[in-house]
């Protein structure tokens, strides 16, 4: 599908900016997507850059010099960074205009969009539903047609799950393809920069601008030989995808819900569409015990890394300084300003890192991570990618949704963390509707194979009627 960004390239940019800011305020009222709105945003001198004067939304965990950066946490509610993230600098250099910074789950720890310090984010398709998280406001603003693209971050599925719930495209490239300098860290070995848009072409365009080695982030690598947009139309005839029968065969579920049955039905419809465009899709098996271990492995690793990464949030260096002696200041700061979810994650992270617990929890989690990634890479020797539904239903209701880890948490809701375990390129595209609400399908490929993954996603999206949709357009 033609890129929205390229269509806007020839628009009257003054009118575009004015109209976009109006939409930002409308969306704020409808969905509460934003922490900061840049009402004074100005046009840049027009240039040849594809992003010249294209408006966008930035998740509020990217440092922006002189502009409030909160991570949607009370602990940073008045923090103004003295430096900018590489992502923000590259977009500014390309002439793009940041029109707002978006609400997220506090520090990216959550999958609902309900834990930001400025309130919950609502789904523009139905405001009684969550937008998904953690990049909730970024997803909601793209889905509502406010901006052609938005930046998110993805540690477990925080771009790809909200993309599914909001009926848009969400892509996280191979680990280290985009610099994370200036991104507030959650779990460093899992954190990725990600992009939302309504078309595959648009996420390709934005990542082409953002990618590249950065001396400030030693996990970045030279991707100068990669051009995502240029390869979107490469032939996909003869490509091969696989899916896990353990997740996609309804007979593996006890008492499946009606929503799950519909998700699987839409998935099978999508498989048929994919086969018709010349891509082979094969059912494969994956050790059930490894799939079932994904939520626990993710929790152990991410909580352990987060506990370490966020130990500087004391209220002494930045953030609201509380009263008392130095210990009381820190205790009061962390007690009063962290949400319940963050406190719980820190305690679990601290527990699994205790010397006497490390082997059972943290080290075993790292071993399972290795085995899952090793087996995935063996699959990628024979296949171009893994394709799976993104969740067991459309976006759930706000009322009743929590971030509490539940015993019955379905593996289907957590499998996308595989993409973070291995640093694999992974993209969500919309693939259907259930009761008038969007759902998505996810495609994950081998590291460094981003061009191939995006070309496959682009051809599949082109074969279905959901790419480019805007929430509310059919009402």
């Amino acid at each position, binding site marked *: 599908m033609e890129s929205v960004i390229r269509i806007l390239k020839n628009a009257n940019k003054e009118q575009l900016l004015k109209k976009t800011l109006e939409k930002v305020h409308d969306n704020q009222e409808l969905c509460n997507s934003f922490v900061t709105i840049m009402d004074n945003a100005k046009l840049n001198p027009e240039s040849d850059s594809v992003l010249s004067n294209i408006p966008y939304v930035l998740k509020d965990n990217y440092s922006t010099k002189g502009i409030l950066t909160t991570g949607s946490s009370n602990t940073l509610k008045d*923090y103004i960074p*003295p430096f900018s993230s590489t992502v923000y600098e590259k977009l500014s250099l390309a002439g793009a205009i940041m029109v707002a910074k978006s609400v997220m789950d506090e520090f990216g720890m959550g999958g609902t969009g309900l834990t930001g310090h400025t309130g919950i984010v609502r789904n523009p398709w139905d405001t009684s539903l969550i937008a998904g998280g953690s990049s909730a406001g970024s997803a909601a603003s793209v889905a509502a047609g406010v901006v052609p693209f938005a930046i998110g971050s993805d540690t477990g599925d925080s771009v790809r799950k909200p993309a599914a719930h909001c009926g848009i495209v969400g892509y996280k490239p191979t*680990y*280290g393809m985009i610099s994370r300098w200036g991104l507030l860290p959650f779990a460093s*070995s899992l954190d990725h920069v990600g992009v939302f848009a309504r078309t595959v072409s648009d996420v390709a365009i934005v990542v082409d601008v953002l990618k590249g080695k950065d*001396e400030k982030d*030693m*996990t970045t*690598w030279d991707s100068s030989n990669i051009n995502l947009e240029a390869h979107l139309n490469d032939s996909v005839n003869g490509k091969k995808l696989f899916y896990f029968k353990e997740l996609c065969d309804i007979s593996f579920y006890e008492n499946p819900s009606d929503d799950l049955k519909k998700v699987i039905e839409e998935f099978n419809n999508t498989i048929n569409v994919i086969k018709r465009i010349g891509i082979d899709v094969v059912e494969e098996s994956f050790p059930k*015990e*490894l799939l*079932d*271990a994904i939520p*626990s*492995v993710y929790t*152990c690793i991410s909580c352990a890394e987060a*506990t370490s990464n966020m130990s500087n949030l*004391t209220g*002494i260096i*930045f953030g609201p*300084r509380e009263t008392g*002696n*130095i*210990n009381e200041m*820190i*205790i*009061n700061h*962390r*007690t009063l300003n*962290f949400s*319940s979810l963050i*406190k*719980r994650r*820190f*305690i*679990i992270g*601290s*527990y699994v890192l*205790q010397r*006497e*617990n490390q082997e*059972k*929890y943290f*080290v075993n*989690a*790292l*071993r*399972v*991570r*290795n*085995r899952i*990634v090793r087996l995935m890479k063996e699959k990628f020797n024979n296949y171009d990618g893994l394709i799976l539904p993104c969740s067991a239903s459309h976006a759930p209701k706000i009322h009743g949704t929590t971030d*509490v880890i539940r*015993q019955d*948490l379905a593996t289907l809701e957590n499998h996308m963390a595989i993409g*973070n*375990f*291995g*640093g694999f390129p992974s993209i969500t595209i919309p693939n259907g509707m259930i009761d008038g609400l969007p759902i998505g399908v996810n495609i994950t490929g081998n*590291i460094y194979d981003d061009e191939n993954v995006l070309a496959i996603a682009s051809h599949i999206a082109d074969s279905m009627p959901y790419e480019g949709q805007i929430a509310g357009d059919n009402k």
Partner: protein
Amino acid sequence: MDFTKDLVDKFAKDLLIGLTPEENKMVLDEFKVIESGMDKIANIPNISEEDVMTHPLEYDNVSLRDDLSVRELSTEEVLQNAKCKTEEEIIVPKVVM
């Protein structure tokens, strides 16, 4: 080591975090799920022989960049986030009592 209410409070204290009784219970409930998952992991065949994976990519050509002395921040920028300050200094809490 069993994960108990008292242990949750001990870890909270070590982390300089205060918990309500409800938050303490939520930690315990969540941990039961993780514990159950990790027990299953411990029983995965030959898992103890598996290498650990701390990072998604292998970097075999990483070198430290040279240190460069540059002046990044002005005094004004340094003071920007400090709530307690004099004209050119941040007032820090008393550490030695």
